[in-house]
């Protein structure tokens, strides 16, 4: 808490509240507009283009999106996200735990090996060539395996687990637990904030993937929702007055679907990731 006195204080508080409210408003208004337009009756959208106050709630575009190819792309995105997050956590947790142990054989070598990749990389083309040589092009595995580990997330997990009091681990050891049981029954339960944070980061990355799909997937039947949404918005925008007009409520409905899973988990995880980030970013 800061200490202050004087008449300028009240004016400052008001200005501060105003600035932060404006910031929040600038974020919320466009989101509200997308949502409101997606549920508005067609006639209103044609008349006003953008709706802030729907005259009625009309879900007919949700019905048509559910019956369209966008919904199967939505399901594909969900599948990639779930499989990817599971694979990522399965790689990140054991490695992060091992790296957090001071007595790990070759620890400083492995840490350097991991950290160097944050400073230098081979670029897009050699990365693409490795994935191609592994025969992964045009497979869903190409959307998961090559990006399954994030060094940033790994370091967060490692730092968090290194900050767990050793007495807790020793208590487990006295009870006769082996290394795997300690990981499962002692480490994981106290790591909830970081698991939630890192899990959210991975899930969001997979859900939002655009570039990897464009690079690795050739068949449009395998495109994920983000790629189809980009085509819908940007490619229909450049043809300014096409013969078949795609109405904004259809676009907005697809857009709502493209943020829906994130919007659903965000409220539950938001507080965790702040704690997780704080504890995980402590320097050793």
């Amino acid at each position, binding site marked *: 808490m800061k200490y202050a006195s004087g008449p300028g204080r009240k004016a400052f508080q008001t200005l501060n509240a105003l600035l932060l409210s404006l910031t929040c408003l600038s974020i919320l208004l466009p989101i509200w507009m997308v949502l409101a337009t997606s549920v508005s009756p067609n006639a209103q959208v044609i008349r006003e283009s953008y709706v802030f106050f729907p005259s009625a709630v009309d879900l007919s575009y949700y019905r048509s999106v559910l019956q369209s190819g966008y919904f199967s792309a939505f399901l594909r995105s969900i599948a990639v996200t779930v499989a990817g997050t599971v694979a990522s956590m399965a790689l990140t947790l054991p490695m992060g735990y091992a790296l957090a142990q001071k007595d790990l054989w070759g620890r400083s070598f492995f840490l350097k090996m991991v950290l160097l990749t944050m400073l230098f990389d*081979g670029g897009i083309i050699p990365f693409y060539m490795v994935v191609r040589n592994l025969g992964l092009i045009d497979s869903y595995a190409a959307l998961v395996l090559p990006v399954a580990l994030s060094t940033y997330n790994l370091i967060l997990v490692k730092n968090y687990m290194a900050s767990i009091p050793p007495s807790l681990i020793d208590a487990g050891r006295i009870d006769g637990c082996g290394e795997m049981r300690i990981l499962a029954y002692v480490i994981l339960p106290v790591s909830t904030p970081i698991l939630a944070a890192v899990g959210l980061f991975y899930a969001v990355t997979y859900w939002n993937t655009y570039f990897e799909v464009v690079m690795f997937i050739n068949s449009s039947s395998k495109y994920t929702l*983000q790629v189809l949404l980009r085509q819908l918005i940007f490619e229909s925008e450049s043809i300014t007055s096409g013969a078949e007009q795609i109405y904004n409520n259809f676009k907005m409905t697809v857009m709502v679907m493209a943020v829906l899973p994130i919007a659903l988990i965000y409220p539950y995880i938001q507080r965790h990731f702040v704690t997780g980030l704080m504890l995980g970013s402590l320097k050793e």
Partner: protein
Amino acid sequence: MLLDRTQVRPRGLSAPRRRTTLLLLLIPGVLWYVLFKYLPMAGIAYAFTDFGFRAKVSFVGLDNFKRLFASMDFGRVLGNTLLLSLLNMVVFFPLPILIALLLNEIRGLKARRAVQFVIYLPHFFSWVVVGGIFTMLLSPSNGLVNALLGRLGVAPVYFMASPGWFRWILVGSHVWRDMGYAAVIYIATLATIDPELYASAYVDGAGRLAQTWYVTLPCLRSTIATVLLLNLAGVLKIFEQILVMYNSAVKQVSDVLKTYEFTEGLLNGDIGYATAVGLFTSLVSFVLVVGLNQLSKHVLDESIM
């Protein structure tokens, strides 16, 4: 520590068994790093070949780099990348610090939580969604911004296709999406400042502003340096945002090193040349980061890395 580990261990795992278990836990991750990080690093060898054009690949030395530096594209692409980075540094970089400072002044816990909830949210939207929102707000035929301009008597502007505006749209959408989230690290640091520092500053006669200047900002110094370093590592690698939002009308200003590498290599099939572009980008980034770290050692008297 309450217990001496050497006394405890014999009742649990023996030291050699613990060592083996830890290595087994480590191996899958290490294999992943070798396969998807270090094998591509070896792939920079393509940069010294004419891979992509002939059936028989031959070593061409530094020819790809000579071609790159002599190319008309190089100056434009590098210029665009640097200009965008500069805009992001000047416009974007201070905003999260400002947000954190303002948020820190809010007394009510509920209001604070509510603001945090909102400002972190857009960071989790994909560039496709963010680009979509901006495209629709800025649409010349039925966008909100042009509707407002119309009321003021201004003719519709096709922002997304205007080379003059496009850079500002990139910076603006970056601000909209990431400003709040980038403040997390500063907010976390502010929470760790010892309240005693403010108390003694107050006793010494420091007002709110002086407290911010002499207590808060010095405490943020090393965090700011770290964030600057991390930003610098990615500064030449700006990519996905542009890949999503660009169109042919703004190609002249939107082509950056990474999009150039992508187009030349994967769309035009000039693998050797594109790898050289990528290698150039990685090397310059590496030098920038290591250089800044050295500088920080001398100036701030602490190494960031």
